[in-house]
C-alpha cells in the first residue's frame, strides 16, 4: 500500500465491535487482534467462524462451519450475497492457525485459487489452543506443546513453522499481509487497505497466547513486539503474489533470545538450539531485505 493509503490515529473508529466483557483469557493476543481488526471493518459484514480460540469475539451475525469448511463457507456467503445483489456486505473470516495451516488448508487454497471475494483474518497462536495447546502446522520449531512434550526422545516440535503467507502468495491472490498486535497502526492500516480490495485477501496476525505459550499475561504486547523486533515475526505485504514490501525494518534485529526466553514453551532449549534459531532468522531476514529491495517475493 502507498503512503496516501495509510490510516491516521484520528481515523480509527470509536465504535467497538468486540463483545465485552468477553470470554477470553487475560492477555489474550487474539482478542486484541479481533478488537483492532473489527473496529476498522465496522458492522456491515458476516463473520465466519470455525472451531478456534477465541471464536465468540464480535457482535456480528456469524456463520459457523465445520472445522475444515472455512474457505468453502466464505465462498458460499460471498457468492450468495452476489447472487441476491448484496455485495455491500463483506464475507470476513476470523480463523485460527489450525483452520488455516492444517485442516482448513484445502478449502482455503481452493477459495484462493478461485480468487473468491473474501477477507481471511487468521490469528495465529501457533497451536490448537481451543483444545488445550496441541501441535499445529503453525507451531514453531522447538516449541513444546501438549502433543510435543519434551523428553529423552523429543526436543519439542522438530520441524519449522509452515510458511503459509508464501503458500498463499503462490496462488497469486490480490493481497496478503502479516501483522502484530504490538503494531496496531500497521495492523489497522492493513485491514483498512484490504477491506475494499476485490478478491482473496489474507491477513495473518500473530496472537500470543499466555496460557499455551506460558508467559506472564501482562506481557503480551511486549512479547509480540519482541517477536517483530527480533525478526521471528516479520511484518510484510505481498500483492498479486509477487510485489513484496517489508513494513518494519530496524537498523539491527534484536536477538531471538529476547523473544524465546520469556516463554516457557521454549525453556528447554539449549544454547546451540537458540543459536540455530538465530541463524535461521538471520538468513530469512536477509532474504526479506533482498525481496524488499527488489520489490518482489524471494523464496
Amino acid at each position, binding site marked *: 500500500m502507498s503512503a496516501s493509503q495509510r490510516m491516521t490515529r484520528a481515523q480509527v473508529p470509536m465504535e467497538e465491535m468486540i463483545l465485552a466483557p468477553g470470554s477470553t483469557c487475560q492477555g489474550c493476543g487474539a482478542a486484541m487482534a479481533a478488537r483492532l481488526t473489527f473496529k476498522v471493518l465496522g458492522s456491515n459484514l458476516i463473520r465466519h467462524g470455525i472451531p478456534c480460540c477465541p471464536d465468540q469475539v464480535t457482535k456480528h451475525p*456469524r456463520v459457523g462451519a465445520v472445522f475444515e469448511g472455512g474457505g468453502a463457507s466464505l*465462498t458460499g456467503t460471498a457468492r450468495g450475497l452476489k447472487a441476491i445483489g448484496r455485495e455491500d456486505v463483506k464475507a470476513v473470516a476470523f480463523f485460527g492457525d489450525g483452520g488455516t495451516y492444517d485442516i482448513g488448508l484445502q478449502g482455503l487454497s481452493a477459495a484462493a485459487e478461485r480468487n473468491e471475494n473474501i477477507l481471511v483474518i487468521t490469528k495465529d497462536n501457533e497451536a490448537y489452543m481451543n483444545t488445550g495447546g496441541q501441535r499445529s502446522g503453525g507451531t514453531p520449531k522447538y516449541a513444546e506443546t501438549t502433543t510435543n512434550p519434551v523428553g529423552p526422545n523429543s526436543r519439542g516440535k522438530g520441524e519449522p513453522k509452515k510458511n503459509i503467507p508464501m503458500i498463499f502468495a503462490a496462488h497469486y491472490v490480490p493481497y496478503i499481509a502479516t501483522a502484530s498486535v504490538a503494531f496496531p497502526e500497521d495492523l489497522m492500516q492493513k485491514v483498512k487497505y484490504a477491506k475494499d480490495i476485490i478478491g482473496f485477501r489474507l491477513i495473518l496476525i500473530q496472537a500470543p497466547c499466555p496460557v499455551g505459550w506460558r508467559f506472564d499475561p501482562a506481557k503480551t504486547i511486549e512479547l509480540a513486539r519482541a517477536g517483530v523486533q527480533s525478526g521471528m515475526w516479520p511484518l510484510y505485504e505481498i500483492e498479486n503474489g509477487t510485489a513484496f514490501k517489508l513494513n518494519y525494518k530496524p537498523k539491527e534485529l534484536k536477538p531471538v533470545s529476547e523473544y524465546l526466553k520469556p516463554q516457557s514453551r521454549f525453556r528447554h532449549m539449549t544454547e546451540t538450539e537458540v543459536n540455530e534459531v538465530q541463524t535461521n532468522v538471520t538468513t530469512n531476514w536477509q532474504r526479506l531485505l533482498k525481496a524488499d529491495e527488489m520489490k518482489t517475493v524471494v523464496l
Partner: protein
Amino acid sequence: MSYEVMVGNKATAVGCKLARIKVAAVFPITPQTTITEYLSEIHASGELPGFEFINAEGELSSQVIVQAAEAVGARSFTCTSGPGLLYMHHPMQETASKRLPLVMAVVHRGVKSMQPDHSDLMSQQWQGWLHIYVENAQEILDTTVMAYKIAEDKRIRLPVAVGYDGYVLSYTAEPVEIPAQEDVDAFLPPYKPMPSILPDQVDPKTFGAGWGEGDPMKPWQMHHEAALNGETVIKEVFAEWGKKFGRTYGNGMIEPYRVEGADCVITAMGTIAGTAMAAIDRLWTDGKKVGLVKIRSFLPFPRKDFQEIAKGVGAIGVFDRSCQPGMWGPVYHQMRSTLYDEEKKTPVIGFIGGLSGKEVRVEDMMKIGEKTLKVAEGGKPEAPIQWV
C-alpha cells in the same frame, strides 16, 4: 411447455433452472458428473441471470458452499454420488441442523462398487434430511422443482435429497415434458430465508452457534417434528403439482400400482419400481393378485399409508436395495416398525437385491411377488429375509 428427449442428469439440471436456483457448487463424480456439466452450460449461456456456478475442490466444500449461500438467502443446489456423499457426511448434518432448505441430487452409486444401489443415501439416514427416491427422468425434473417447495415450507425448513439410480437412469434418455417457466414461477415463489443473517436486518441471526440457554434437546425435538411434517407437506405439494401440471406420482409419499383387490403387495424404490410394474402385470395375467407400492419418500417414512395398506393385504414383501451388514435392510426395518402396533398382524418379509449394480430382472420381481403371495395365503416364508 415443451418436450425434449433427455437423460436423467439433464432433467436434474433443467429442474434446477426452472426452480431459478441462484448458486450451485459442484464436484464431479461418476455417475453424477454430467449434471455439473449441464449446470456449467446453463451458467455459460447466461440463460439463468445472476446464477453463480462454483467448481468446488471436493464434495465436502461443495456442501459447505451451498450451505452458506442458503444462509444468506440464495436458493442453492449441489449433487453427488456414492463416495462423494460419504465425503459430505460431516457438513450435511450442519445443513440440516441450521434448518437450511437445500436441495441435492444423489445419483446412486454403491459404496462397495461403482455400480448403483441405495447404500450411499441410506448411509445418511441420521443426517436429518428428507429423502425422496425417484424412478424416471420426468419424475426427476418434477421432483427437483417440488423438492424446493417442500424444503422451503415453513413447517419443514430442512434440506431434501432427491435420489435416483446411477447409470440406468442418469445416462438413459427419455422424452421429458418441460413445464413453462411462468407456470413453475407461479408454483414456486422466490426463496425467503428465515431468519435473516444480513447485518442490516432487524435482529440478524447467527447460523451454526450452540443452542445457548435452555433444554439442549429442544433442537432435536423440533428437527424431528419438522421431518415428520414432511408426510403432510409432501402430499400437499404433490397434489398441487398434479392439479397444475397434470402429472401425479401417487400421493407423493407412495405410488401404488394395482394395489386395489390385491391379496398382497411388494415394495420397490427407484428404477426397480419400473421393473416391478412389468412383473406385477405378468402376475395378474397369471391370476396372481399382487400389487406394488413404490416408496417415494423414505424419510419421513410413509407410516400412515402403509398402516392403511396393511389392513387390506395378507402380506408385504419389502425390497431393499441396500444392506446394513448385521442389521439387514433399512426399508424392511421401517416397515416392520410401522406395522408393529397394528391390531391386524400383517407378515412382512424382506428381500435384498440389486446391490453393487446386480441386475434385477422382471422374473426376479415376479418371484418376490409369488413368495409374498404364498405367505399371504398362510404359507411360511423360507427365511424372514432373502437375497435376490
